[in-house]
């Protein structure tokens, strides 16, 4: 139950962030144009969007950290599997498990380093240049995202140990191929 909520939250967070960042930059560009038009100048001039770029970057960094955790669950992080795939199944399983645990270890170390860093920032009063957000809030995505990613690696490793199945991001699967004949006729008309 808790896991299901976590999964959904993760998905909603990253999808919202990418949508919001896109709209934000779009709005900033539109505003810049509108200011250039004399008629609209009085309406748009007072709107100050100089902070848009900074916020966009922060939103994407947050999206990257949590999206990377989501990516472990969907198996999108690709590695070099040419050698592993020709190994004997028994050895292969061990190597794959080692890889997953390395992932968990690395993200744990990074998360802890990030946590320490955020903790030190918390005692300072550093703020970001345009938005003037406290720096420690901005950096909070490093420990949170990395610990979540660590958890996802452990989850995947556990599932692999139990069932021998890895999440697999299927590049060869193409959505909508089944509905293609209609389109195909359309194109060959």
């Amino acid at each position, binding site marked *: 139950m808790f896991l299901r909520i976590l999964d959904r939250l993760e998905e909603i967070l990253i999808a919202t962030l990418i949508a919001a960042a896109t709209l934000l930059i779009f709005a900033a560009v539109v505003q810049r144009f509108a200011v250039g038009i004399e008629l609209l100048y009085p309406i748009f001039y007072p709107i100050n969007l100089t902070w848009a770029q900074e916020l966009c970057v922060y939103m994407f960094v947050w*999206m*990257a*950290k949590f*999206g990377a955790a989501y990516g472990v669950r969907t198996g999108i992080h690709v590695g070099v599997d040419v050698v592993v795939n020709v190994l004997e199944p028994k050895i292969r399983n061990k190597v794959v498990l080692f890889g997953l645990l390395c992932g968990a270890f690395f993200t744990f170390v*990074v998360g802890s380093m990030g946590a320490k860093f955020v903790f030190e920032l918390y005692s300072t009063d550093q703020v970001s240049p345009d938005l003037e957000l406290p720096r420690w809030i901005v950096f909070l995505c490093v420990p949170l995202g990395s610990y979540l990613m660590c958890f996802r690696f452990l989850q995947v490793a556990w599932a692999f140990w139990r069932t021998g199945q890895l999440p697999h991001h299927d590049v060869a699967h193409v959505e909508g191929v089944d509905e293609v004949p209609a389109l*195909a006729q359309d194109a060959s*008309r």
Partner: protein
Amino acid sequence: MNSILIFGLLIALMLTGMPISIALGLTVLSFLFIMTQVPIEAVALKLFTGIESFEIMAIPFFILAGNFLTHGGVARRMIRFATSMVGHWYGGMGLAGVMACALFAAVSGSSPATVVAIGSIILPAMVQQGYPKRFGAGVIATSGALGILIPPSIVMVLYAVATGGSLGIDPEGKRVLSASVAQLFMAGVIPGLMLASLLGATTFYRAWKNNYPRMERKNWADTLVAFRESVWGLLLIVIVLGGIYAGVFTPTEAAAMSAVYAFVIAVFIYRDMKLTDVPKVLLASANMSAMILYIITNAVLFSFLMTSEQIPQTITSWVTGAGIGWVGFLLFVNILLLAAGNVMEPSSIVLITGPILFPVAVSLGINPVHLGILMTVNMEVGLCHPPVGLNLYVASGIAKMGITELTIAVWPWLLTMLIFLGIVTYVPELSLWLPRMLGML
């Protein structure tokens, strides 16, 4: 000595099949902990600041735009337009496939996305018309690679990002800045069109030799209708390239604009996508972008380590000391990148090798823009052959063909690409002429 240790560890970790990003990060961590006194805080800071740049954010925007375009009926209308233009020649549908790929490449920054968008529609149509499956799959898998050469291109953004912080000194001792995204985009136009023509010529020749079916000639009225229908998609080319060239947008802004624009035409103008499909597209784009951004984060860490160990400088002085000219060096670069293309996917290769090759190339007088285009073409070749060529896997999913069969199917076009790679490598003007004419170089 240290460099051997670093690369040895990296390669050993990568061969276990763990994600490349994790292998890069672990190499840096273990090396810093064991061998050096670099404060760990510097690393923690880099983990965040590594991707804290507005330029990099073009990548998620282009991915989002590409996904909207793929699902939004833009590709179908481009195919119809291309078919009405070249369908009556030998191998008409194949040629239309190449042209549609080139058109779609001009709005999308990714090769596999181009294969999906064009291939999933045109491949079944080709089979229906009596073309052998192999021919169709071969054309689309290779032409889809145009996606990263014809701007916009995610690989070019990655190259600009990867080499942005490197220190390059040219033979006269002046500092050389890396190529900007805008320069690379403009430089990709002519090589992109040239490769499209070469692939088209190969298609034409094969179809003429085997006497594949042609379509009846469409009259001009039909062509005009097809053009009018696809004009919304084609307009995006003007927005992105024109906007960047005229200085109206930065590349990142252009990417964001094209994402919003693609959303609007997919949902409100062509209405091939329902509003309820949008969250799925957003999630898929976020997933893909986060993966690339995560590799960038760790690649930045890795290049930080290399810089602090002075590895690029060591290689540079060794190469200049050994008297290797730019001709020999570029040959070596091609071989290295083609070999890397056998085991890794493009974004990782560019991010890892970019910062190493850039200072060496610059010290031999090679233009950073030229190096960027050359690397992009190398990545294209890597996408089209096994074992990791992503285009092949996507095409095999669409055509329901095995990878082995597909490997045989692509070879005429792959050979064309290799010849093209040779031309791009040793004729720098091909990449440099347009940006210079536009006064961007």
